[in-house]
């Protein structure tokens, strides 16, 4: 995973609640066995509307997405994360995220930031009126948009992984002997398969 400390750039206002993973990447594009090639189909069903925010030139490769609550609900497809990252998006700011989507984001270094409704409304309003640059600093856990600064929560372990570009699997494998011992002790005590 690539180390990330700051994310700065144009914010895309996509003010829709409950965007599901079928919207982010429709199932017909999931037959690929590669980890790339999903970006061109990202939000395919919303892109059929010429006014959709991601059809606008100024938002191409913009790194920050502002969106509604429960973003990423539905299936476990990690293709949704890969598709979003291929659009150049590095951080998503929303009132809430679906759990599996949030877990998948962590594994790929996509930063998800939760902000309360009042901050979200302000950000969406500002970015809808004019193009706004947002600066996210991961170390200090702050978002700066125009003249306002807000803090955000971040899981300490994920923060450590993100800033240092560490992979969770490497951490798991560094514990592999302990894991093997644990699994041996499970047999016919708590596990009967």
């Amino acid at each position, binding site marked *: 995973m690539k180390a990330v400390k700051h994310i700065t750039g144009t914010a895309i206002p996509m003010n829709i609640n409950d965007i599901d993973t079928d919207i982010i990447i429709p199932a017909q594009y999931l037959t*690929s066995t590669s980890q790339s090639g999903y970006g061109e189909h990202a939000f395919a069903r919303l892109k059929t509307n010429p006014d959709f925010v991601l059809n606008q030139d100024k938002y191409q490769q913009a790194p920050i997405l502002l969106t509604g609550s429960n973003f990423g609900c539905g299936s476990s497809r990690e293709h949704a994360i890969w598709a979003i990252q291929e659009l150049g998006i590095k951080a998503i700011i929303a009132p809430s995220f679906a759990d599996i989507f949030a877990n998948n984001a962590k594994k790929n270094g996509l930063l998800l930031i939760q902000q309360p409704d009042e901050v979200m409304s302000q950000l969406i309003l500002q970015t809808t009126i004019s193009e706004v640059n947002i600066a996210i600093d991961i170390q200090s856990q702050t978002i700066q948009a125009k003249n306002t600064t807000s803090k955000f929560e971040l899981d300490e372990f994920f923060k450590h992984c993100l800033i240092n570009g560490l992979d969770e699997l490497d951490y798991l494998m560094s514990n592999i002997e302990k894991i093997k011992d644990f699994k041996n002790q499970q047999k016919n005590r708590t596990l009967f398969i």
Partner: protein
Amino acid sequence: MNKNIIDKIWDAHIVKQNPEHPAILAIDFCLVHEVTSAQAFDTLRHKSLPVLDTTKLLATVDHSIPTRKNRHEIFDQMAKAQVQKLRDNTAEFEVPFYDMDSSHQGIVHVVGPELGITQPGMTIVCGDSHTATHGAFGALAFGIGTSTVGHVFASGCLLMNKPKVMKVEFNGKFQAGVSAKDAIMKLIAQIGIGGANGHVIEYTGSALTDMSMEARMTLCNMSIECGAVAGLIAPDNITYDYLKTKQYAPKENWNKAVDYWNSLKSDTGCYYDHEILIDVSQLKPMVSWGTNPQQAIEIDQVIPKSSDDMTKNALDYVQLSAGDKLMNTDLDWAFVGSCTNGRIEDLRITASILKDRKIASNMTFYIVPGSEQVMKQAADEGLINIINQSGAEFRMPGCSMCLGMNDDKVPAGKRCISSTNRNFVGRQGTGSITHLASPATVAASAIAGKIVSANQYFCANGDIK
């Protein structure tokens, strides 16, 4: 301290818990299918890692395959390559694999339980959000992304923060023709599609005491549709009766296993972060009207009025209006199948309603068994003949029309009543319109050619006339 069943399973699987770190959680079994595994096997290759324990994995094909009789010929070249990739990967890493015609191919969440792989107290994962199905046995089972699938392959573990726990108590006796599917749809409509985010649900209550394992699987299956990490039901004698004869069930350790499983029940007075009570005794069959599973009503209600954009967009898409009744809405397609309702009990109910009747002449009705075992049993019980004589089409096992990623799609603009789990925009094919319902409601509606209740087919005691 009094613990709930999730606390007990969680605590029994903690390999390591450092402060400020997620837990290293031991995973007992990982189910594998073609769509979410290829990149995980690539990770193993990239890092030169083996699978930690191949006996704790099982792979099959379900999502991308056709359900025609001659399904071995896959016309979609991408899907064909994806299925072949799973064959190659499982051969290379020596992962047990049930291919087509192996007698145990099917939807992962149907195959696991019927083999007895799904057992109480286990942690079970799969790159699939409907993994909570296995919670019916009192297992902590949840969907994960492909990166995490790779972690489980290599380490038999994953990193996770402990979820909160919600208790959902379904009380009362179902009316004839109302089932577990209606109960879970009611919960989702009540708390919303994000209503259980961050929680594992324990389902309890008098409505569950004599509920079959098949119905419990339907209930747990849709936990993700209200955002829950997982949903489970404490094991009881119904669980043990179902499990005892299955291939992977413990044999010489059976009594020891049952003692352990009985100890998992939530302690009296244990803590839940959230509790919900639902009385099912007056519940009518549920049908979804919109573009997410929360947008659902009882079949005799009208579509609610709301000024929000989400409702407006949903109604535009499904070509209905607030104030409309769903009852008698004209249909083009019907589908019974999927990990939600593709088990033998679902096919029995469907066939009982279709027996000696014909579906409406304009309808296309696919009935797709969840597995080769379900198909075999349906054949043995004469259900396939009944179904085919009604004008419906009995097909080969797979995910089929639940999601538009194989040949089975609802055409654009066509309206389908479906026993599946999601009615998202385009879920059953670009431009398709989905109404979620129980198999009974689907079968009755296929006969009528429009959305109707199945209650005319049921006696007051719940038997089918």
